[in-house]
C-alpha cells in the first residue's frame, strides 16, 4: 500500500512534515509559511536543566507546537494519538495507510538508521511522515533528507518508542478536517503577534531576556567551570543553534522568507523591510557561531574572548528587541 504523497525537503523537520502533509491535502503552504503562522521562532534558557551535559538552550518551542498553532490558526483540525502498546501503535498506523492517510510521527533520532552515526543522539522530538508500506518495510519521508527512505517494522518501532526526555510514546498525527475557505491574513497576523509576544516575554527564561541571561553566564563560565567545560558549553550552544537548520541563523532566514511572503498577502510593504532586517540579524547569529567556534577550537584561556562573545550576544539581543517591538506595531 502506498499513498499518493510527494516528498519535499525542508530545513526543519516539524515545518517540513506540516507543510508536506497539508500539501497532500491540497493546501499550497511552504515551510516558511508554516513556520511563521505556527510561531516557530523562539528562545529558551534553563541552566539548571542539562542536555548533553550542558545547560539547556532551545531555539524552538515545544515539539508539536508549530504544527498545532499553524493548524489552529488556519482552522485545520489535527488528530494526535499516543500509545502505550507497541502493537496497537503499528496497527493504527497501518490502518491509516490503508485508508490512504499519510501520517506524521514524532520519533527519537538515536536509532534512525539512515542518519550518520555522529548525528545520532538521544533527541526525541524529530518528525517524519510514513506514506506507505511494502512487505515489512515502511516508506518514510523524512523532511530533512533530500529523498525518501525506508525503515523496517522493528526499526520504526524502536524510534517511535524511544525513551528519555520528551519520549514520543508512539505519537502519530494527521489532519482530519480542512475548511474550504482559509483565512490567511488573520492566521499570519496571529502568528506574528504570538512570536513578538514570545520574544518580548517579561520572564527571564524566554526570548530576549533569556539571551541576555545567557550572555551574562558566558562571562562567568571560564572562571566558574574552567575553560574545558566553558568550551563544551559553547560548542553545545552552537550545535543547538545551527544544527540541521534549527535555531539561530537558520531560523532567522526562514522567518525572513516568511515575512517576505506575508508582505504580499497582507499587502503591507513595510514587512519587506522587516524581512531585510531579519536577514541581517540572521547573519549576525552566523557570525556569532563563527566566533564561538574560534574560541572552542583554539582553546584560548583569556577571559576576554568570552566577554567579547557575551557582548556580541547582547548586541543581537538588543537588535531583536527593537525588531520585535517595531514588528508588533506594524501589524
Amino acid at each position, binding site marked *: 500500500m502506498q499513498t499518493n504523497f510527494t516528498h519535499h*525537503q*525542508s*530545513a526543519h523537520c516539524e515545518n517540513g512534515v506540516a507543510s508536506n502533509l497539508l500539501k497532500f491535502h491540497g493546501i499550497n503552504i511552504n515551510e*516558511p509559511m508554516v513556520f511563521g503562522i505556527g510561531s516557530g521562532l523562539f528562545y529558551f534558557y534553563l541552566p539548571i536543566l*542539562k542536555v*548533553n*551535559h550542558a545547560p539547556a538552550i532551545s531555539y524552538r518551542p515545544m515539539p508539536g507546537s508549530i504544527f498545532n498553532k499553524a493548524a489552529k490558526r488556519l482552522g485545520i483540525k489535527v488528530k494526535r494519538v499516543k500509545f502505550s502498546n507497541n502493537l496497537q501503535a503499528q496497527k493504527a498506523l497501518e490502518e491509516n495507510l490503508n485508508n490512504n492517510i499519510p501520517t506524521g510521527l514524532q520519533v527519537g533520532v*538515536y536509532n534512525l538508521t*539512515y542518519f*550518520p552515526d*555522529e*548525528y*545520532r*543522539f*538521544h533527541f526525541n522530538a524529530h518528525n517524519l511522515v510514513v506514506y506507505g508500506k511494502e512487505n515489512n518495510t515502511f516508506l518514510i519521508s523524512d523532511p*530533512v*533528507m*533530500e529523498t525518501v527512505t525506508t525503515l523496517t517494522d522493528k526499526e520504526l518501532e524502536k524510534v517511535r518508542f524511544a*525513551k*528519555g*526526555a520528551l*519520549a514520543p510514546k508512539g505519537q502519530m498525527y494527521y489532519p482530519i478536517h480542512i475548511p474550504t475557505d482559509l483565512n490567511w491574513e488573520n492566521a499570519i497576523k496571529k502568528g506574528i503577534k504570538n512570536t513578538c509576544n514570545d520574544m518580548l516575554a517579561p520572564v527571564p527564561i524566554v526570548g530576549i531576556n533569556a539571551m541576555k541571561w545567557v550572555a551574562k553566564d558566558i562571562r562567568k563560565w571560564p572562571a566558574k567551570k574552567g575553560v574545558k567545560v566553558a*568550551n*563544551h558549553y559553547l*560548542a*553545545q550552544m*552552537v*550545535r543547538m543553534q*545551527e*544544527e*540541521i*537548520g534549527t535555531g539561530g*541563523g*537558520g531560523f532567522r*532566514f*526562514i522567518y*525572513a*522568507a516568511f515575512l*517576505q*511572503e506575508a508582505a504580499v498577502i497582507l499587502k503591507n510593504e513595510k514587512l519587506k523591510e522587516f*524581512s*531585510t532586517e531579519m*536577514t541581517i540579524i*540572521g*547573519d549576525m547569529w*552566523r557570525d556569532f*557561531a*563563527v566566533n*564561538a*567556534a574560534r574560541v*572552542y*577550537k583554539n582553546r584560548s584561556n583569556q577571559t576576554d574572548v568570552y566577554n567579547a562573545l557575551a557582548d556580541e550576544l547582547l548586541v543581537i539581543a538588543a537588535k531583536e528587541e527593537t525588531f520585535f517591538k517595531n514588528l508588533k506595531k506594524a501589524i
Partner: protein
Amino acid sequence: MKENEVPQDKSNLSTVNLKELCYAVDENGEYTTALSTGWEPKTIALENSIQDINERIEIAKQNVKNGIVSPVVYFMEVHKMDWVTLSDYVGMWQWRVKRHTKPNVFKKMSEKQLKKYADAFDISIDELKNFKGE
C-alpha cells in the same frame, strides 16, 4: 545570507552524501533555497561533542577496570545516555540505576534486572557482566 554564501564545507554529512536545505537571498533580494554540504563551525562543534563523549567513555572504562564503577556506567556512556535516558529505558528510578553503578551492588543483581540493562544497551547479559574495562 546570500545564495552564493551558503556554506559548502566538508562535514560528517558528506560521508553519507547528505545535504541540508538552507534559506538564502538571491541577487534580486528574493528568498530561495539552496543545499549545503556542511559548515565548518558546526563541524567543529560536533567534533567537540564527539571528543567529549570519547573522553567520558575512556574514563568510564578505566573506572570499571579499577573497580570504581560497574559496567553499567561504561555502556551508558557508549550509548551517549544520561541518567534520565537510561532510567527510562530500564524502567527504574534514577536512584536505583545509580545504585547499580556500584560494583558491589552490580555483582548481586538478578538476571531479570541485568536483562533490562542488557536490552537497553542492545548486548547480551554475559557481555554486560563480563566487561572488565579492557
